[in-house]
């Protein structure tokens, strides 16, 4: 049938029903008149002729009805009637409808808000032209960890840019925090230092300015591009930012463009992209730098090349390069097992957050299941409560189809309103997630939904609708016609009760699973918070400064200022111990290769972390020296530096801890002309210097800051003063000594250590909120179902009591139902928790995935709640009076 024609008939019948009816009547009347005239002409009297015509026609109303069916009027009229009745009932049963809509809106909305992040960060392709061609070039040359993907270097970048056919363009960059002077104010901003092809490679759209302008470097200034979100937060919309001059480390940069904030999908939180000075680059290029990993290399492959073809060509280029080097160089490369691999940028980037988001999505889906069970049970209860109403309607001529139509109308209204609510909840949820955990929040600037996110929420709402309709309609579908037609007990009652109890079991199981996962994460958090970090941050304050090159041009000025700061701080009696360090724990120490001096050739290479510290660092931080001595003020990094290593370094040096003193090694052995052998003079206790909640991967080497030109460093001060007062003192001290130097990352060390656990805390908060909601929903679910069951069986209970059943028997009859659902649910929940816990082992810190005590205690807790929720309805059953119960029907 012509669909368009059919639809136009449908719409006409909907909006012009009166006209159509009148036309039909007129047409039929005309027919009857013509037939009457025909009979009159044949000799019948007008009255008899009219009667005969009516007889021939065969009942006008009957044919009108058939015509209405043909027009589809009946269908639309019925739909209209159904929806009108649904909306009437919606307002009549306000609390019932509001509960369903609230649960549906909250659960679907919570899922959608997590999906928004999952979609944006993991699934959706980057919103750049042909983003599938973007690659990251990785290298593998760590002998101790051959699977460790390392970043790239200038040598590789220069070589590939010049000779590769499979790569269309490539760009090298580093990411870091810098002091940026804008409009006379110094701001601490996160930026990318990138080579000129950066934007050409990524093809990220510019909001202001042109991509080409990033390549035009003048003698006075280098180009800098701001991200749109930073531009909006810093400058008024009507202000022209192009051409504005900024300064980073004494170098002048000119704003040449504003790039879409989508770049933050690649580098979260980035605020500007500055041009990498080519002179600096040239200094870094040497054959030795081929095995360094100081920068990230991104490339765009030619569309005609596949990824395997690209990798083959890159391997060929590497071999070509190594063939031109000395024999000892080649031997070293062979020894390291050097290889290069290009990987799809989308697959590689942000993968660290994927399991976390998937965990949150899984937890949200469990909440949806739990919420949906409550809704389904409410609808099943409504079916049973309206059983008599259904029978009466059936007796009045409403068939199964019509009853199902009415239910479908009810569910579609719930789903539609619930879905609209879920969109609002999702937008709210995104803001909440952003405020709770910056780790996720940094990927999205303004809460909005992409078409796929809206589609996802619609799909979830539709699935909920299907489940709700199945539950609501099961009473009709599974009942025979005769059962519907006779006013007998609905066979669906028993089925719906079984379904309700099965769903309840599932709900209890899901809640327990969620509770155990929360418990495991909470225990991990607790363990991370209360672990032995190896240092004592209590009473230690810190402030970080970066000396601007325009004011502190040479090493002498830098050293002089550092010494002044140390001397002035030490002179203050309220500061008991003072030190300077290039980095503070958990904020990332730099890494380098090192090798141990055993023979002329390095026996092994490995990665280490290092930090430059002043004397008294160990005393200020409360790190015990296990053997040897600490860094002294006479130690110098310029030549034959004396170092202190962590006890863990013994493993990496393949020595006994006692043999470490006097051991010589070389840091950054591949650097040209690096003849500086370091010597271990002391062994310090191990510290949690990388992360508080993850095992350490590399040892830490403490080097003397004296003799270095480190212009960015942290002051560390141990003080008995209260923190705000101590911070005021510190701020004044820095202002007096270096008035032009901005201070950042200032606060208590304890505060910064807690901050490093913020991401874990954020996830814990979300999952904790979910598990509380699950507990609440499950307890209400058990209570509501049992209460409803008791109220429905009052007559049966009355008969049982009247024929001699004891009240204890009745009590346990009801309790048994709740407890059996609780027990089976607990078994399901324990199994689910174990399966999920084993897959999230990487999130757990010093906590076993199968923590028996936690599993047992939380199972007991949920059984206790089920018992309480079952106790009240059981008591209600005991109080049933046989006489009033029997009188009830």
């Amino acid at each position, binding site marked *: *049938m012509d669909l368009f024609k059919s639809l136009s008939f449908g719409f006409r019948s909907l909006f012009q029903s009166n006209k159509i009816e009148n036309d039909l009547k007129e047409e039929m009347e*005309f027919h009857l008149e013509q037939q009457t005239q025909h009979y009159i002409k044949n000799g019948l009297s007008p009255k008899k002729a009219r009667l005969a015509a009516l007889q*021939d026609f*065969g009942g006008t109303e009957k044919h009108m009805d058939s015509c209405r069916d043909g027009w589809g009027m009946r269908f639309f009229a019925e739909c209209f009637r159904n929806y009108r009745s649904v909306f009437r009932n919606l307002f009549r049963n306000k609390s019932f409808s509001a509960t369903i809509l609230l649960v549906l809106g909250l659960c679907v909305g919570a899922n959608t808000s997590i999906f928004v992040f999952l979609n944006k960060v993991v699934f959706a392709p980057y919103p750049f032209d042909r983003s599938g061609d973007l690659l990251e070039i990785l290298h593998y040359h760590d002998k101790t960890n051959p699977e460790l993907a390392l970043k790239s270097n200038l040598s590789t970048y220069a070589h590939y840019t010049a000779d590769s056919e499979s790569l269309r363009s490539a760009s090298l960059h580093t990411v870091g925090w810098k002091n940026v002077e804008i409009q006379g104010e110094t701001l601490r901003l996160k930026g990318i230092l990138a080579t000129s092809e950066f934007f050409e490679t990524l093809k990220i759209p510019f909001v202001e300015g042109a991509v080409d302008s990033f390549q035009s470097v003048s003698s006075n200034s280098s180009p800098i591009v701001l991200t749109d979100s930073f531009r909006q937060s810093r400058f008024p919309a009507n202000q022209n930012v192009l051409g504005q001059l900024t300064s980073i480390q004494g170098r002048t940069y000119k704003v040449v463009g504003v790039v879409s904030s989508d770049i933050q999908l690649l580098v979260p939180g980035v605020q500007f992209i500055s041009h990498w000075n080519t002179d600096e680059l040239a200094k870094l290029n040497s054959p030795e730098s081929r095995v360094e990993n100081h920068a990230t290399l991104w490339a765009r492959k030619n569309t005609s090349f596949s990824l395997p073809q690209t990798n083959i060509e890159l391997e060929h280029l590497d071999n070509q390069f190594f063939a031109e080097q000395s024999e000892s160089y080649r031997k070293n490369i062979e020894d390291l097992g050097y290889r290069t691999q290009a990987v799809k940028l989308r697959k590689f980037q942000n993968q660290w957050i994927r399991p976390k988001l998937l965990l949150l999505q899984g937890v949200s889906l469990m909440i949806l299941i739990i919420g949906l069970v409550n809704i389904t049970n409410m609808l099943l209860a409504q079916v049973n409560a309206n059983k008599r109403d259904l029978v009466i309607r059936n007796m009045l001529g409403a068939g199964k189809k019509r009853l199902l139509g009415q239910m479908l109308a009810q569910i579609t209204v719930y789903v539609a309103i619930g879905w609209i609510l879920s969109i609002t909840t999702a937008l709210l949820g995104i803001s909440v997630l952003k405020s709770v955990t910056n780790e996720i929040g940094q990927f999205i600037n303004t809460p909005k939904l992409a078409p796929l996110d809206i589609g996802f929420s619609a799909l979830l709402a539709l699935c909920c609708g299907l489940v709700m309709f199945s539950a609501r309609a099961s009473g009709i579908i599974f009942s025979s016609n005769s059962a519907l037609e006779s006013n007998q007990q609905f066979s669906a009652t028993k089925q719906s009760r079984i379904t309700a109890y099965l769903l309840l079991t599932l709900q209890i199981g899901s809640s327990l699973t969620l509770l155990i996962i929360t418990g495991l994460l909470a225990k991990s958090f607790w363990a991370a918070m209360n672990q032995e970090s190896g240092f004592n941050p209590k009473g230690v304050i810190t402030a970080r400064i970066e000396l601007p090159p325009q004011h502190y041009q040479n090493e002498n000025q830098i050293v002089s200022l550092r010494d002044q700061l140390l001397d002035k701080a030490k002179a203050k009696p309220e500061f008991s111990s003072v030190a300077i360090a290039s980095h503070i724990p958990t904020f990332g120490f730099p890494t380098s290769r090192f090798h141990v001096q055993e023979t002329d050739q390095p026996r092994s290479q490995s990665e280490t972390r290092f930090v430059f510290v002043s004397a008294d660092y160990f005393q200020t931080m409360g790190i015990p020296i296990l053997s040897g001595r600490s860094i002294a003020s006479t130690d110098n990094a310029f030549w034959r530096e004396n170092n202190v290593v962590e006890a863990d370094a013994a493993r990496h040096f393949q020595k006994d801890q006692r043999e470490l003193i006097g051991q010589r090694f070389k840091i950054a052995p591949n650097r040209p002309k690096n003849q500086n052998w370091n010597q271990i003079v002391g062994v310090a206790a191990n510290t949690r210097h990388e992360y508080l909640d993850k095992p350490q991967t590399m040892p830490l080497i403490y080097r003397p800051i004296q003799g270095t030109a480190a212009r960015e460093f942290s002051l560390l001060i141990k003080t008995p003063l209260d923190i705000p007062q101590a911070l005021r003192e510190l701020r004044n001290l820095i202002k007096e000594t270096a008035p032009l130097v901005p201070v950042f990352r200032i606060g208590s060390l304890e505060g910064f250590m807690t901050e490093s656990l913020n991401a874990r805390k954020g996830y814990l908060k979300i999952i904790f909120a979910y598990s509380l909601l699950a507990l609440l929903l499950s307890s209400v679910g058990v209570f509501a179902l049992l209460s409803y069951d008791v109220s429905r069986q009052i007559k049966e209970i009355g008969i049982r009591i009247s024929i001699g059943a004891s009240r204890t028997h009745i009590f346990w009859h009801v309790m048994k139902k709740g407890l059996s659902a609780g027990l089976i649910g607990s078994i399901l929940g324990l199994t689910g928790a174990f399966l999920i816990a084993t897959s999230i082992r990487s999130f757990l810190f010093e906590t076993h995935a199968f923590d028996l005590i936690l599993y047992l205690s939380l199972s007991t807790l949920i059984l206790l709640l089920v018992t309480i929720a079952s106790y009240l309805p059981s008591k209600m059953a005991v109080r049933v009076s046989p006489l009033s119960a029997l009188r009830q029907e």
Partner: protein
Amino acid sequence: MAKSPNDLLQGSLDMLVMRALRDESRHGWGIQQRINQLAQDALSVNQGSLYPALIRLEKQGCIKSEWGTSEAGRRAKFYSITRKGLKQMEAETRIWKEFSAVVNLILDQA
């Protein structure tokens, strides 16, 4: 119980309506008269059932309708066959003829 030719008509009414409209447009009563005339009064169509059939055919796009004035000067709805209706009628007529020929063949041999 013996069936009258009217029972066989069920389902073939659409084809008969289209045949009645092949030559010119007609109103409902005119269509019924034309069918009677073509059938030489051997078929008596239940007159009321004509109207659901007309709606059905119009919905399928086989016929179209418009209001006009009858011979007696009264407002009446006139139906005419569409190109699609003509094709449909020809196809259905061919099938009907083939089918009835086979049935006749079987019945004659019996």
